[in-house]
């Protein structure tokens, strides 16, 4: 398929799927807590409402950073689904996340400030593993391009089990789920008020929400890549990873950032690099 066409399909489907996944997340979390939970379409209702709300800021320019966060997140997902270089995807993802952090710094509120710092710590925790994932995929398939990796005949998960597990660990951080929802947490949880998101409101908050939908789709797409040789297994794996994240979220209390950092780096070192060493020398 033409990369541009794929980009267009992604642009339309990603927010729909992302929003729906967020809805499933809330419904499922509620059921795990013996509640009925909100309607499946709740995330869309929320975004629409936020869009209609007044926008309160502390510093006027803080919103532009968020706007660029959204744009870059969409762009990053586009790169991924158009079949571009994985390392480039990682860098673009980092750049996007950085814009959100800068916006929170700019807001100059103590809560968003600590939220921003913790977001940085989270980035510091997951970044190595994500890079290792890209490297692992390269070593297994001989290419950094998502296209080539997807077209690879073998099931990558079989050659990269450690990397897959490490990547799942990072998903917990990236999805902002317990036990690693340090910088800001989901739905009704409150950590540092709302951490990095505290000072964003109205349409800006809606943009952040939508950006997260794009981000989640991208990350689940990455899980799919581990099983790209058989699409059915790939989709099942992506959904499985998503369910796993939700279950862990509901079963765990929040951990401190040193634990997160040590845990993530240890995982990267042992599972990620162990796997890569195995791949290189055996």
């Amino acid at each position: 398929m033409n990369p541009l066409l794929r980009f267009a399909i992604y642009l339309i489907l990603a927010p729909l799927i992302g929003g729906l996944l967020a809805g499933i997340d809330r419904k499922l979390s509620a059921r795990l807590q013996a509640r009925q939970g909100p309607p499946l379409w709740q995330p869309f209702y929320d975004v629409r409402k936020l869009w209609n709300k007044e926008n309160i800021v502390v510093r006027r320019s803080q919103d532009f950073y968020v706007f660029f966060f959204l744009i870059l997140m969409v762009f990053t997902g586009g790169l991924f689904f158009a079949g571009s270089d994985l390392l480039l995807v990682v860098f673009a993802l980092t750049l996007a996340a950085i814009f959100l952090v800068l916006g929170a710094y700019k807001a100059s509120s103590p809560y968003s400030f600590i939220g921003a710092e913790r977001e940085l710590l989270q980035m510091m925790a997951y970044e190595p593993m994500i890079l290792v994932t890209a490297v692992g995929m390269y070593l297994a398939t001989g290419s950094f391009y998502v296209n080539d990796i997807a077209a690879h005949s073998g099931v990558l998960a079989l050659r990269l089990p450690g990397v897959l597990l490490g990547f799942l660990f990072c998903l917990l951080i990236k999805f902002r789920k317990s036990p690693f929802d340090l910088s800001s947490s989901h739905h009704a949880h409150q950590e540092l008020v709302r951490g990095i998101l505290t000072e964003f409101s109205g349409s800006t908050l809606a943009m952040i929400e939508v950006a997260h939908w794009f981000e989640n789709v991208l990350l689940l797409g990455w899980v799919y890549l581990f099983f790209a040789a058989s699409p059915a297994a790939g989709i099942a794996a992506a959904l499985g990873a998503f369910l796993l994240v939700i279950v862990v979220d509901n079963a765990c209390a929040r951990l401190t950032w040193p634990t997160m950092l040590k845990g993530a780096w240890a995982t990267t070192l042992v599972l990620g690099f162990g796997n890569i060493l195995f791949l290189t020398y055996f």
Partner: protein
Amino acid sequence: MPAFAKSPWVIHYDASSCNGCDIETLACLTPLYDAERLGVVNTGNPKHADIFLVTGAVNAQSGDVIRNIYHQLPEPKVVVAVGACAASGGIFRECYNIHGGVDTVVPVDVYVGGCAARPEAIIDGIVRAVQILEVKHKATQAAARGIDKLVYEPALAGDIPEILALQKVTYRSEAEIYGDDSLPAMQQTLAEIEADLAQWTFLKASINGKIVGSIRGRIEGATGYIRRCIVHPYFRGRGIARRLITEMERSFPPQVVRFETLTGHKSRRNLAMCEKLGYRVFKTEEYLPTVQWVHLQKERK
């Protein structure tokens, strides 16, 4: 479909008293009542919330907090007073430290009865609040759409508190320009501005009864002095300020042949606007360490 009905986000504050209503409010989120099935989220952050849920009576300390949180809720917003204490002070009403109900501090839209209020009643209160949210949202939208329905008219004594609130919102951008929070316009009290009413004529610009701009003027001999032209940040860049100044000029009697106004030296937008209206700079003077006054004048044509 209504935008606000399906996603009421709540911030919950306990002003004082026995915590009974406080606990009942949180009980709404438990599996038995599960307010989230209505889309309710307990945000804990005023800037994300639509509904301000207050329990308990207001005392000296919590009054300020309630006011602060109320101001930090983005429009449209609704205040729900939960329980007897929040409504009137309840059994604490006569205590030495109690001001009374929440409505002594901020306007309340919905009262929920009970001591303590039952979770069912609280959820019912939220549902009613959601309807009010819709109404308020429509009113704001109408205001935004009805910008051509702007009315320029003399302000009355009853408008003064609203104008003062507007002045504080408006001058924040000026304070940012000069890096100085001590601008007198930011510090003015209600008593001072009411005293001004004796010497100055006030004009206001309003949409559907909501004041979005104001200006004041005074006559001394043949000169009309025009001061404090303020426009709500949301409505800037739409010619309201210019119109206010022209209206003010027009309201002066014919013996006034010269108009004078002033602005700070760094307020480039104000200066540009005054020059466009025909005002010319004739002197500058030191005012505050951070601000220099630029005086502008114009002859009546």
